[in-house]
């Protein structure tokens, strides 16, 4: 689960082959005296090693991106501001299966100026580019899921740049504080701990796409979700001999509410608040976790994962096959978009007959 534990794979053979290819290709093209701007990463920090580089309008440069990190990255230069940057990233994360073959570059021709391929650890790619004629700040980012929150920088276009600020290197300050970022890269991860402004019995689940949630393991519903990086678990682990740990972990992204804010299921009567008991959860590799609990003694399994669109969650319920009374699910539909695989709505209540309640899916989300 903890990224710093992993050894860093070094695909050195691939890397040297690539460099050889690069050398050969440079022999075949006419030599143009042009500036090279090199960008790599701060390994393990989810950061580019360059915060800003400056070009003059219309300048021809070769931008070389080297992935010296332990996970996949790309580098995308865009036209727009920080909000545009996040929008590009979100579109990239929503591409699903098509993302890989399209290098995690969404179809946004008005905004995307340049991009590298998605690079495996140890790989390198370069772009020969001509700087825009218009002065200004052009953001660059990595569009792999969740990376853009911290993997970002500015390509500054300026007629008379300050010579000593052509390349501003990133400074790693992460070791100075107690931050210890837990970030899912390939599969969901779970962390139980106290969390700021959360229930004491919490199960936090993070997904590579940047949608995360906190499940209340006492009341058995999603307490809140958040969008962005997963957790700073420094307060829980403690980072040195003087820190006792055991403190509330920090949610790193932007929180969103979801669902009822209380246990949403009712058996038989909508009015009767049921007795719920948490029974644990299952985790299997790359699959989303499945929570288990009893509702008035009836066994329920609920798999929770990011919604297929928007910002929100998809809940797949499997209920006790012995259920005889109808099941009611509450959700404030004035606040959320809800899609249910079965049942009939009456205001904010979805009612499912026992025969369709054995397996059903609800997606509760908001537009980004």
């Amino acid at each position, binding site marked *: *689960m903890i990224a*710093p*534990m*992993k*050894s860093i794979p070094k695909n050195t053979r691939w890397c040297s082959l690539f460099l050889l290819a690069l050398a050969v290709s440079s022999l075949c093209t006419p030599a143009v005296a042009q500036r090279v701007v090199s960008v790599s990463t701060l390994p393990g920090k989810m950061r580019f090693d360059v915060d800003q580089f400056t070009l003059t309008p219309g300048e021809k440069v070769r931008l070389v991106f080297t992935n010296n990190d332990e996970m996949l990255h790309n580098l995308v230069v865009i036209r727009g501001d920080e909000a545009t940057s996040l929008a590009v990233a979100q579109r990239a994360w929503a591409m699903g299966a098509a993302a890989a073959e399209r290098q995690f570059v969404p179809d946004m021709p008005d905004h995307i100026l340049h991009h590298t391929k998605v690079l495996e650890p140890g790989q390198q790619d370069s772009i020969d580019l001509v700087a825009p004629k218009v002065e200004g700040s052009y953001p660059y980012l990595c569009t792999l899921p969740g990376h853009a929150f911290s993997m970002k920088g500015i390509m500054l276009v300026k007629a008379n740049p300050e010579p000593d600020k052509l390349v501003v290197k990133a400074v790693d300050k992460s070791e100075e504080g107690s931050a210890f970022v837990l970030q899912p890269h390939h599969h969901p*991860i*779970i*962390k*139980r*701990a*106290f969390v700021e402004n959360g229930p*004491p*019995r*919490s199960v936090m689940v993070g997904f590579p796409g940047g949608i995360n949630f906190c499940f209340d*393991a*006492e009341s058995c519903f999603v307490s809140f979700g958040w969008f962005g990086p997963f957790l700073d678990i420094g307060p*829980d*682990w*403690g980072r*040195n*001999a*003087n*820190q*006792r*740990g*055991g*403190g*509330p972990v920090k949610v790193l992204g932007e929180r969103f509410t979801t669902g009822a804010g209380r246990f949403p299921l009712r058996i038989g009567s909508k009015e009767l608040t049921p007795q719920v008991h*948490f*029974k*644990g*959860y*299952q*985790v*299997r590799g790359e699959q989303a976790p499945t929570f288990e609990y009893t509702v008035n003694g009836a066994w329920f399994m609920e798999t929770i994962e990011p919604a297929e669109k928007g910002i929100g969650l998809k809940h797949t319920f499997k209920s006790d096959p012995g259920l005889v009374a109808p099941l009611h699910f509450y959700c404030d539909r004035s606040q959320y978009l809800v899609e249910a695989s079965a049942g009939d709505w009456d205001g904010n209540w979805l009612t499912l007959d026992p025969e369709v309640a054995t397996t059903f899916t609800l997606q509760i989300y908001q537009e980004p």
Partner: protein
Amino acid sequence: MRLFYPYMLILISALSFVNAFTAVKAPAGYLVETVTIPEGITLGVGGLAFDQHGVLYVTTREGQVWRHKGDQWQLFADGMHEVLGIYVDQVSDEVWVMQRPELTKLIDQDGDGRADIYRTVSAEWGLTDNYHEYAFGLVRDQDGNFYGTLNTSLSWAGWAGSSKWDIGRVHDGKMGRAARYRGWSFRVTPQGEFTPWSMGMRSPAGIGMNRHGEIFYTDNQGDWNGSSTLQQITKGRFHGHPSSLMDHPDFQGKDLNAISVEDYRQMRTPPSVFFIHGDLANSPGEPVFDETGGQFGPFEDQIFVGDQTRSNLMRICLEKVQGQYQGAIFNFIDGLQSGVVRNQFDSQGTLYVGQTGRGWRSAGEKIFGLQTVRWDHQTTPVEILAIGLTPEGFELRFTQPMDSQLLASTEQYAIEHWEYLYRPEYGSPKAGKTQAQIEKITLSHGGMRALLHMPLLEGRVYQIQLKGMRAASGGPLTNPMGWYTLNKRRLNERF
């Protein structure tokens, strides 16, 4: 795990410990070795258990469970909330752990070596975000019932996680009750039924069970605890810290502040053994019984327990006097690399010592770790084997014959006694410290026993120091002090 009151004390005492114990000091024949933990693993030990195949399970404060054998380390479970105890079934290999919020069974259903089902067995106790609400474990009786202990909540401003919790306290004691069953031990049946078992615990950082199914726990010095203690857990017993009584049916609706300290004293069962705060231990952990059949030397059936602050191991011998356990404590090994919280014997009688120093500035150079203590199966250490009571006075037993001239000389003994005050204030001085005189010494068993004839007082802790004592073979005692907690005198039975 414990708390200090004056912050300055933390610094001063921590520094002095570091200076005092830079090298391992162990009895002859005992070898301390350090287990290499691979780079990248944070192993703030919270629980240790062996399975029947000799695989060591290590649970951590960081919420993980590691399996270790030889030089192999495998992550078995992850992402839990501070795992401070574990039980592994010796036949079925089933694994249960104590997390802060619940007792959990870990199931590796697909057999890939990694738990995939985290089954909640019981979560009946209250939990707030209060920093100090630890849950410790884990032992299991022959009927399959689990036992664990629940820490009280901390009332100090800034330390409690949140001000929204109303922390019930008694007579202004610093620890209290923010949620149900804080300060209780509990039993959970195999079916998951939770029963609060005994109450009056403060910071019950370690629990252990002997081969007869008797359960003991250690409690840390603080309010209502004049010094750290070893106590036996029996159903319904009141161990002395009163805020837990808020969850006792007999005290519903009653004002616990209207009950006097003296009345609480009458209700409580006094501890079996006091650890000597400052001299021996500041925050003792898991008591483990030497049931190795002699593979760990001459201390069969005695208890080994470590200290989280001083990074030492101690040894305890118990006897039943007037129906209750009491006994003596000795230092055993000093100079371990980090704070000792958990101990387990492997099948060869090697003691595995689980360590964490994070947050309390333990003695030693490491912030966490794992060490082993092994007896060489040959050397008889020069130690006081046990101290017991006879109607005439203390009987000292040794691991080997002592120099009989020294043993018979009252000049060789320095004995003093004191009381640890039962009170809501934090800790206790050694109150009423008094020198004791030996009237006569009788030797027996070829110089392996000495009976110190002397009058004895109940409710006192006796410190017995054997200044220049040597074995007949010449060697000095490695640990020449013993402390006996004398709750009751022995009237006529024999030690």
